[in-house]
């Protein structure tokens, strides 16, 4: 079944909450609804269930306007798992799940039929809640309660499941359990799912599409890898993130980086020679201290390359797995010439990137301040049969400042930078 939202606007009093939202949910789709707190996600769900009535715009279900459906029709179409479920009254977990059958029990005088009882039993079994069927709902833990409410939604046998942060009280195993269950319902029974999710990684892993709301507007909608870009997340949440792909599921995942206060860029330029993931922390630390950092030469796909790119640092990139070309080596030297200092991380050296050590030698010859981080000298960095080690020795003897860690390197550079 499909839900079409057209130019929907909603306000609480004179405070607009949703502004001109148009989107559609396809039959059998798993749609994630994301956005910061207060961006209107829950309100949108409440409009879809006709609990709130929009000021403008329309919602239709399989081509029928929402207002033309009776409350019971709507309850047979949508089942909702709300953010919080609580009651002061002594219902058992079983009673709660049985309430999902209310829209299916036609007469006010009728009691639950065999089919109703079977649906409840099946829903409790699927959500693994049978063992506390006769316990008081109010005595269950947050996670158990959430599973009972999901069981109620399943017992309701809806065509579309609307979930408002279904994993909010759950530990990581509970999150995966519930999300896997919902995806199973989605894939095997064709139940359409619309879920408000806060966990971006969970969303990208399970959702076919993600709708990103920002201040009541639909900011973007599409497949997770198209919507969850660092730019979109920065724009909507105001947080810097790195976006990566899980190598095993190919789902994108994001890692937030601590918000960096706008730093005074003092213009001291530092060029970093790194690779193999050894330079990320160094580049970030320098960047956050206001140095103008550049890096090279790095292969695309190297995580140091990704880090440099995330920080928008000038970086000389080489094709994946390719040895450093003479052109790029020349560009690297160009950047070294323009720098005040050069730092080399303890990067592994192979035939492909031996030229970076060559560049270090030239840096010293150009009388640049050169720092060599040797955090763990026992660590094998030489994959070229001693050639790298001999260059390093030569670098040390011709004036390279050897430091034991990134922190030492930073203080050494800062002290030297101040004398410039």
């Amino acid at each position, binding site marked *: 079944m499909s839900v079409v939202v057209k130019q929907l606007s909603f306000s609480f009093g004179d405070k607009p909450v949703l502004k001109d939202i148009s989107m559609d949910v396809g039959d059998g789709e798993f749609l994630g609804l994301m956005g910061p707190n207060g961006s209107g996600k829950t309100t949108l769900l409440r409009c879809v269930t006709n*609990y709130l009535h929009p000021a403008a715009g329309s919602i239709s279900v399989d081509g029928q306007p929402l207002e033309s459906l009776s*409350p019971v029709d709507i309850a047979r179409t949508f089942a909702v798992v709300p953010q919080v479920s609580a009651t002061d009254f002594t219902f058992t977990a079983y*009673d709660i799940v049985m309430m999902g059958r*209310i829209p299916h*029990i036609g007469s*006010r005088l009728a009691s639950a039929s065999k089919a109703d009882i079977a649906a409840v039993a099946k829903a409790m079994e*699927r959500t693994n809640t049978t063992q506390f069927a006769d316990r*008081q709902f109010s005595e269950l833990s947050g996670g158990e309660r959430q599973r009972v409410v999901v069981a109620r939604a399943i017992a309701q046998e809806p065509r579309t499941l609307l979930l408002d942060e279904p994993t909010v009280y759950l530990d990581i195993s509970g999150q995966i359990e519930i999300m896997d269950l919902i995806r199973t319902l989605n894939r095997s029974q064709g139940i359409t799912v619309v879920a408000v999710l806060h966990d971006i990684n969970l969303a990208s892993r399970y959702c076919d599409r993600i709708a990103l709301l920002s201040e009541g507007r639909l900011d973007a909608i599409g497949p997770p890898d198209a919507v969850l870009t660092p730019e979109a997340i920065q724009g909507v949440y105001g947080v810097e993130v790195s976006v990566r792909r899980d190598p095993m599921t190919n789902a994108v995942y994001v890692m937030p980086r601590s918000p960096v206060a706008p730093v005074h860029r003092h213009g001291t330029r530092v060029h970093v020679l790194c690779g193999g993931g050894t330079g990320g922390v160094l580049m970030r630390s320098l960047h956050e201290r206001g140095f103008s950092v550049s890096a090279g030469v790095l292969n695309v796909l190297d995580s140091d390359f990704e880090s440099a790119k995330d920080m928008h640092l000038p970086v000389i990139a080489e094709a994946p797995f390719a040895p450093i070309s003479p052109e790029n080596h020349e560009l690297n030297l160009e950047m070294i010439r323009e720098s005040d200092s050069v730092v080399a991380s303890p990067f592994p050296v192979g035939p492909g990137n031996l030229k970076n050590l060559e560049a270090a030698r030239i840096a010293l010859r150009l009388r640049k301040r050169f720092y060599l981080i040797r955090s763990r000298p026992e660590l094998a960095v030489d994959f070229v049969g001693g050639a790298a080690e001999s260059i390093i020795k030569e670098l040390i003897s011709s004036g390279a400042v050897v430091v034991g860690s990134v922190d030492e390197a930073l203080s050494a550079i800062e002290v030297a930078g101040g004398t410039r």
Partner: protein
Amino acid sequence: MVALSRTGEAAALESRFQRQRRRRLLFLSVLPFALALSALFAVFVGSLGPIGPGDPVKMTFSEAIDAILHSEGDWPADYHAIFWEVRIPRVLLAGLVGAALACAGTAMQAVFRNPMADPFIVGVSSGASLGAVVAGLLGMTAVAVIGQVISPLLAFTTALVTVFVVYSLGVVKGKVYVDTLLLSGVAVAAFLGAIVSFLIYFARQEYHRIIFWLLGSLSLASWTPVVVLAIAAGIGTLAVFLYSRDLNALLLGEETAHNLGTDPEALKTLVLVMAAVMTAAAVAFTGVIGFVGLIIPHMARLVVGADHRILVPAATMSGATFLIWADSLARTIIAPNELPVGIITALCGGPFFLYLLRRSRTRGGP
């Protein structure tokens, strides 16, 4: 799929709850018999008949039954009339008032989603008190026939007007806000209570009568209130029962109730109106009989659980039974005088409620 093949567990769950349902229905089917036996017993309790203080006349059971069934016989001529015009209507009225208050209390607790709500929460008792006190001060209660009609009518009307005012204060743009409703109920009750106290201060010779009414008594029972209350309580309890499944959903919050296919706004208004009318009718004839509408729903809930499909009939019948017993006690304990039944309900109800509360707490249930 793995989950679907584990049907053994599901089957066990099904049969367990079929058994539980049978147990609850069995309990429910015992209640009408308890009610009928209590009513029968209460008819024979009093200053005449086989049970009670036995002053002035002690009758045997067969004599008493004869006096009920035959207008003439081997006993004083007015005994037949006493049974039919005083004793039986009084027992019926006690049952109806108890049923109405217990059912209204159950309904109010559901609408307010608050186990501490009672039938008087929206201002019924304070409104009715004002009407009754005004009627008393105008000397209407002293006038034989008119007093018996006007005073309840005035109390009933002021009760409903008060409820309407409180309800209007709790409604904004067609939506009933129960927390606002609750607080307006408290505020309006306090305000009217002050007026009532002020009026009582000037009541002088009507003072005793008014206090007696305020404490709640069934001594004015006759067939008219029985018929009126039978209609009000009949419609009210039936309506509440028919919407009991919706009330279950409402206890999970209005949004969930909506998502389960009910209409919470219509439900709240309907149930509030039904409960208020039932309560107003009861209070108009008998004064403010407290605790029944608070304790009986609680007791019933502790026994049968929160499912209103069982709870509403269980509380209604228990309320009727309880008030019949309380009234029997009220009219015999200091015979030939009688106590206001409201004192008895509070005296019995308070401690028993505390006992149940403690017991359920130590068991871990709320």
